C-alpha cells in the first residue's frame, strides 16, 4: 500500500533535540524583538506567579499554564489589531496577555474578583477582553472554533478587513466540529486564522496514541487552506507565518492555518511539572524540550545580533516581576462580585 507516502508528519519539529539554537532574528527590527521578549517574559512570569499561587492554595480553581508555549501567542498577535476577533480555549492566559491585556485583570479574574477580565464570573478558563480583540476563551475543547469562523464571516459582511483567530490544541483537532469549521471557513472564504498549538499532548495522551500522524496541518491540506507548519518556540518564525496568512485573509483570500509545534512545561493542569496526575511524560523529554526554550532562544538570538545583553534580560525580568507583584497584591485585595451577580448577569440588562 502506498497510502502512507503522502502522510504529512512533523519530522524534526517534534524532536526536541532539533531547533534549540538561538533564533535567527534576520531582518526583524530591534524594537520589534524587544517587544517580543518583553511580552513573552511578561506571560511567563505571570504564569509562574499563578503556578506558585495555585500550589500555595491562593488560587481556588484550576489553571492550565502555557509556560514554554509563549512564542505562539506573541508571534500571532504581532499580526493582529484591536478590531480583530480572537478566541481561545482552556489554556489562554498567553492569548489574552499577548494582545496587551493587563496582568492585573487576568490575576483578578483567576481569583474570581469583580475587577477581573470577566468580572470574576469566569476564572482562568473563561477570559474576555473584547476592547483588545479578545472575544472569549472557554474550556469546552474546540468550543470556540466555529465561533471564530462566525466572527470571520461577520468581518466579511461588515467589510471591515478584520480577521478572526481560533486558537486550539492538537487534541481539539479530534473534535468533529473543527473539521466542519475548516470546511465552512474555506467554502465561505471567511477571514479566519486557525492556530493549532501542537504541544503533542492532550492531557495524558501523546498524539501518537490519538492520531495517525503528528501533524494536524494535514487537515488544512484536505480543505485546501493555505498553511504553514513552524517551530512554535521561534517567535520570529511564528510571526512571519502569521503575518503571511493574516495578510491573505485581509485581502479576501479566505482562511489560513498555522500549526506551531511546541511543548508545555507544566502538567496538563496546575503547577506540577511532569508528575502531574495522569501525565505520562518523562523528565528527560521535558528537559530536552526546555532546551528549545522560546524565551532563552530569542534572548540569545538578540545577543548574537548585537542588540541585547544578558544584563538587560536580568533588568527586564526584575522590572516585570515588580509590576507583577503590584498587580498580584492589588488583585488579592480587590472585592469579590456581589452575590446578586449570579442572577443579574444571565441576560442582558433591561433595555439592553
Amino acid at each position: 500500500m502506498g497510502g502512507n507516502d503522502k502522510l504529512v508528519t512533523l519530522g524534526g519539529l517534534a524532536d526536541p533535540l532539533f531547533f534549540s539554537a538561538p533564533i535567527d532574528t534576520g531582518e526583524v527590527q530591534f524594537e520589534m524583538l524587544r517587544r517580543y521578549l518583553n511580552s513573552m517574559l511578561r506571560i511567563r512570569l505571570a504564569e509562574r506567579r499563578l503556578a506558585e499561587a495555585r500550589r500555595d492554595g491562593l488560587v481556588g480553581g484550576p489553571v492550565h499554564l502555557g509556560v514554554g508555549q509563549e512564542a505562539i501567542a506573541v508571534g500571532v498577535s504581532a499580526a493582529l489589531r484591536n478590531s480583530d476577533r480572537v478566541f481561545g480555549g482552556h489554556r489562554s492566559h498567553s492569548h489574552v496577555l499577548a494582545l496587551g491585556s493587563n496582568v492585573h485583570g487576568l490575576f483578578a479574574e483567576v481569583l474570581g474578583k469583580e475587577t477581573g477580565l470577566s468580572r470574576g464570573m469566569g476564572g482562568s478558563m473563561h477570559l474576555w477582553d473584547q476592547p483588545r480583540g479578545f472575544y472569549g476563551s472557554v474550556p469546552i475543547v474546540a468550543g470556540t472554533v466555529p465561533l471564530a469562523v462566525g466572527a470571520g464571516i461577520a468581518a466579511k459582511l461588515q467589510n471591515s478587513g478584520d480577521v478572526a483567530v481560533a486558537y486550539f490544541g492538537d487534541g481539539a483537532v479530534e473534535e468533529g466540529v473543527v473539521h466542519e469549521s475548516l470546511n465552512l471557513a474555506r467554502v465561505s472564504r471567511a477571514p479566519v486564522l486557525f492556530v493549532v498549538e501542537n504541544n503533542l499532548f492532550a492531557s495524558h495522551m501523546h498524539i501518537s496514541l490519538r492520531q495517525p500522524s503528528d501533524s494536524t496541518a494535514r487537515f488544512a491540506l484536505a480543505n485546501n487552506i493555505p498553511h504553514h507548519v513552524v517551530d512554535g518556540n521561534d517567535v520570529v518564525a511564528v510571526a512571519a507565518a502569521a503575518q503571511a496568512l493574516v495578510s491573505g485573509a485581509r485581502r479576501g483570500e479566505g482562511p489560513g492555518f498555522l500549526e506551531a509545534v511546541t511543548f508545555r512545561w507544566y502538567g496538563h493542569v496546575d503547577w506540577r511539572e511532569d508528575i502531574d496526575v495522569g501525565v505520562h511524560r518523562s523528565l528527560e523529554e521535558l528537559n530536552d524540550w526546555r532546551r528549545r526554550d522560546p524565551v532563552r532562544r530569542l534572548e540569545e538570538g538578540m545577543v548574537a545580533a548585537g542588540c541585547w545583553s544578558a544584563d538587560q534580560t536580568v533588568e527586564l525580568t526584575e522590572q516585570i516581576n515588580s509590576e507583577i507583584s503590584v498587580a498580584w497584591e492589588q488583585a488579592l485585595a480587590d472585592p469579590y462580585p456581589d452575590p446578586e451577580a449570579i442572577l443579574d448577569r444571565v441576560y442582558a440588562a433591561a433595555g439592553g
Partner: protein
Amino acid sequence: MEGRTTHTYGTAILSAFEYLLENYPRVFVIGQGLWSPWYVGSSMTDLDKKFGVERIIDTPVSESACTGAAVGAALAGMMPIVVHPRMDFMLYATDAVVNQAAKWSHMVGGQAHPGVTIRAIINRGGEQGAQHSQALHSWFAHVPGLRVVMPATVADARDLLVASVLCKDPVMYIDDRWLYDQTDDLPPIVESDLRLEGPKCLAEGTQLSIVAAGHATRLALDARDELARQGYSAEVIDVRVLNPFDPERIVQSVLKTGRLLVVDGGWRNSGFSAEILASVVERVSPNAMKIPARRITLPDAPAPTSRVLEKAYYPTSDTVARSALDMLSRS
C-alpha cells in the same frame, strides 16, 4: 459482617466495572482518560491493566464519534459502556444519545435495541465554572427511549451500574463526584432488572416527605438528621430512576405526611423537580396537603466560578433543613 466489603461510592463503581468485565465478555468500556483515570476519582483505577487496552479503550477527544460508535457496537451485539468524565463534555454527543440510541427500538418496530450504557459524571464546584458543572439529568429524562438513573448511595452506585449494563435498552447512568467519599459495607453483587427499579424510601418519617435524586438525596438525608435533632420526623425518598418515572412511592409518602419538599441539583425551570411536583399534584388532593409543596434547586443561572458566588449558588443540607423547618413550623 460476613461476605461484606467496605466500599466508597467510587470503589463501588469500580467493583461494578470489574464484575461486568469479568462476567460478560461482551462488555467493553470506551471514553477519555481510561488509561489514566485520575479524572474519575477511584472509580476506574487500573481497569486497563486488568482487562487490557482492547476492552478498556482510551480515546481521542471525540465525544460524538465515541458515543455513536458505542451505540453501533451495541446494535452489533456488544454491551458497551461509554464514559464521559464530565456531563458538560458529552453535549457534543447528544445526537448519538437523543436521536440515535433513544429512538432506535421504536423506529424499527421494537426489533432492535442498542443496549448501550452512557456513564455521565456530574463534576462541579472548585471554581470551575459554567462549562464544568452541569447536572443535565432533567434534559435527558425528557427523552422517551432513554432510561436515566442517578445513584445516590454506595450500594446503588454499584448495583444500578450493573443493572444498567445488563438492561437491553440504552441507559444513562449519572454519578456525582460530590458523592465519591461516602462509605458503606456492601453484600456481594446480586443482579437486578432495571425495569423493576424505581423510587425508594431511604429513611422513614411521618411529618414531611423530602424527595430528591443523586447528590440532592445526600443533602436530604443530612437535613433529615438535623430535623430529627430538632424533634421532627422527615421521610426521604430517593428517586433513583428518572426515566421511565414511577411516582407511586412518592405519592404514598406524601399521602402519609401531607408535606412535600423536593430537592434537585439542577435548575428550576422545566427541571426534574417540576416533574415530581406535577406527579404529586395530579394524584394527591389539595385537601391532603397541610402546606403547599416547595422545591429547592439551583438558581436559574450558569455556575459562577468565584468562591463566594459558588457558596451562594449551591444549596446545602442546611438550605434544605431551614426550608423544611419553615414548612413544619407554619403548618
